[in-house]
């Protein structure tokens, strides 16, 4: 291998990137755009669910129960209605996701029978929100029921019964259960998939499309020199974008970083090798920029987005899909990123993920190197 030829390739590639507005957009604007879209836009925390109340009892007790809903940050009482028709209309319009109905003679039943029930109606068109809303509503009702019981026992002069088992829960690693802390490290993987695979997917295809490849391969430059010369600039761009995203995650989004920067960058290098090789491979096979860029997004960005555990947890996926995720490099990289950022997991506890990533990197760079031939047709 001849260093001058590699440098000549790399220099030419840098000049072309610098003069291509589309590449510059992908390099500089896209990472920032993605960080903000996912950092702020994808909020999986379910708080402030709009709530509609219909109090048909109209007593101090029923108001007391409804106040419990107002007291939490999980619900906002946005509507107080006087009829079922209004209640249904509110749910239909989406102004409320949950409605609580206190039936007539609620207090009376409570006092005479020692039990009464209220109704919760949930808009389950978004099943996730409905599920969580139901959980919150149940919790509030249970807490209220316990208080009512204690009050009653006191009035009867009985000693208050103490719950036998209680849970004191503490959340680790993401103490405030902020989904932003979970999402933002994953964005690094997404940004690298786009910068690495999308941009490189154009590089060989562009030479074929513009007819410059024929001249290029008539020179003594070897295919390895072409590959390295073309990928080195994108490698540095990828690493810079990774650093930029990591910095923004910690400084802007206040995501904790508890692990080692060396591990984080070492694994980023592995992932970058994978996406660069894939982009290059696609470019060699596709020979047209349009086909190549679409294939690159389909094989790197989409899996990184949907199947890496970035947003949708892998262990909640169907078994077959879980198996598919095992060949996806983004899956391992996202897992490593979360561990390094939030848990500070030492590398010896992540050997499985790191080995898988290194293996995929070795396979993809071999495939990319073999695929390109200095021949026409």
């Amino acid at each position, binding site marked *: 291998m001849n260093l001058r030829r590699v440098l000549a390739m790399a220099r030419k590639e840098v000049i072309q990137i610098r003069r291509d507005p589309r590449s510059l957009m992908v390099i500089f604007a896209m990472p920032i755009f993605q960080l903000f879209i996912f950092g702020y836009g994808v909020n999986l925390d379910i708080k402030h669910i709009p709530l509609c109340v219909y109090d048909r009892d109209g007593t101090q007790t029923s108001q007391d129960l409804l106040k419990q809903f107002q007291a939490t940050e999980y619900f906002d009482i946005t509507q107080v209605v006087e009829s079922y028709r209004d209640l249904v209309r509110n749910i239909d319009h989406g102004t409320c996701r949950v409605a609580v109905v206190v039936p007539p003679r609620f207090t009376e039943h409570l006092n005479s029978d020692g039990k009464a029930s209220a109704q919760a109606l949930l808009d389950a068109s978004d099943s996730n929100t409905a599920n969580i809303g139901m959980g919150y509503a149940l919790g509030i009702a249970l807490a209220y029921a316990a208080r009512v019981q204690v009050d009653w026992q006191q009035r009867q002069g009985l000693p208050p019964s103490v719950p036998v088992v209680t849970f004191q829960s503490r959340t680790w690693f993401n103490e405030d259960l902020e989904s932003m802390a979970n999402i933002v490290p994953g964005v690094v993987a997404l940004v690298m998939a786009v910068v690495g695979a999308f941009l490189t997917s154009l590089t060989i295809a562009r030479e074929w499309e513009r007819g410059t490849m024929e*001249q290029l391969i*008539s020179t003594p430059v070897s295919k390895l020199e072409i590959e390295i010369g073309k990928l080195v600039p994108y490698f540095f761009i990828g690493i810079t974008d990774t650093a930029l995203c990591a910095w923004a995650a910690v400084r802007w989004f206040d995501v904790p970083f508890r692990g080692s920067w060396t591990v984080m960058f070492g694994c980023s290098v592995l992932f970058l090798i994978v996406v660069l090789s894939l982009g290059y491979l696609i470019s060699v096979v596709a020979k047209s920029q349009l086909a190549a860029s679409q294939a690159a997004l389909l094989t790197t960005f989409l899996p990184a987005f949907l199947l890496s555990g970035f947003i949708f947890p892998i262990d909640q996926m169907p078994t077959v899909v879980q198996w598919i995720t095992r060949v996806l490099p983004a899956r391992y990289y996202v897992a490593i990123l979360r561990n390094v950022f939030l848990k500070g997991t030492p590398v010896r506890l992540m050997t499985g993920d790191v080995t898988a990533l290194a293996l995929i990197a070795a396979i993809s760079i071999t495939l990319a190197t073999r695929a390109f031939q200095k*021949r026409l047709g």
Partner: protein
Amino acid sequence: MSANEISVAVENLTKRFGSFVAVNNVSFEAHRGEIFGFLGPNGAGKSTTIRILCGLLTPTSGKARVAGIDVAAEPEAVRQQIGYMSQKFSLYNDLKVIENLRFFAGLYNVPSADLSGRLEWALRMAGLEGRDQSYTRELAVGWKQRLALGCAVLHRPPIVFLDEPTSGVDPISRRQFWELIQEMVAEGITVFVTTHYMDEAEYCNRLVLIDRGRIVAMGTPTELKTRSMRGQILLVDCEPLGPALEALQHAPGVLDAAVFGNSLHAVVADPAAAIPQIKQAMAAQGLRLSRIEPIPPSLEDVFVGLTAGREIKPGGTA
């Protein structure tokens, strides 16, 4: 350094693309320091041959040696010995003139000591002195072609392959380009050039006429004109051209006829006998004949006589 040193040797070369035979059992030799022309219509197999010689395509069968090296076996060894200019302009339009030159100088590993001298030489040769900072896409076609030639020969290769270097170039730029080729040949470089311009073939020391993948004739331009013709050429000026061609093709004593510009050329075995016969045939058709006289054959006559003639008169003497 003998003048008969063989730069390119091709033996029974065949290239098939599926069932299509692009190059059909072709053999020839090009010697050091000559302009070796490959002349033929579009689709004759010229580009395919040149691409095989540059190691860009693998031959289906046959042998090709460039600078004594077997191209199919050692394409990389051949590439340092050659310069190649493809038919389609293939420099980087988004690079400046100097950036293209530097890029190819890097790929050819031009020694650092020679670099600035070679870059200056290439700029001067291309007529782009002082325009080294221009974007390549802004250059006119003639300058682009000369820059491409400059990029292809920065490393002083002993053999240069030029695939239709002057196609789409204006006549003045074409002439300048051929002057450059002649300068290179004077330095001992072998130039292998394809063209479909018959007039350019006159610049070649030796040439091969190729049609539908087969060599139909080979030799110096003079040899081809004197030896390969099976008759003599008559220039015929007659109006209107279309019916006149029809009449001429069927006139007695005419072996072949074709349109050349605003005139017709007829191939005849015996001009003295044919001229009155043609005049008579034209008059019978009511066509106005303004001129008829014998002329020396051009390469185009030779080519038409050897190729198209077979189609027009399948039962002819060819």
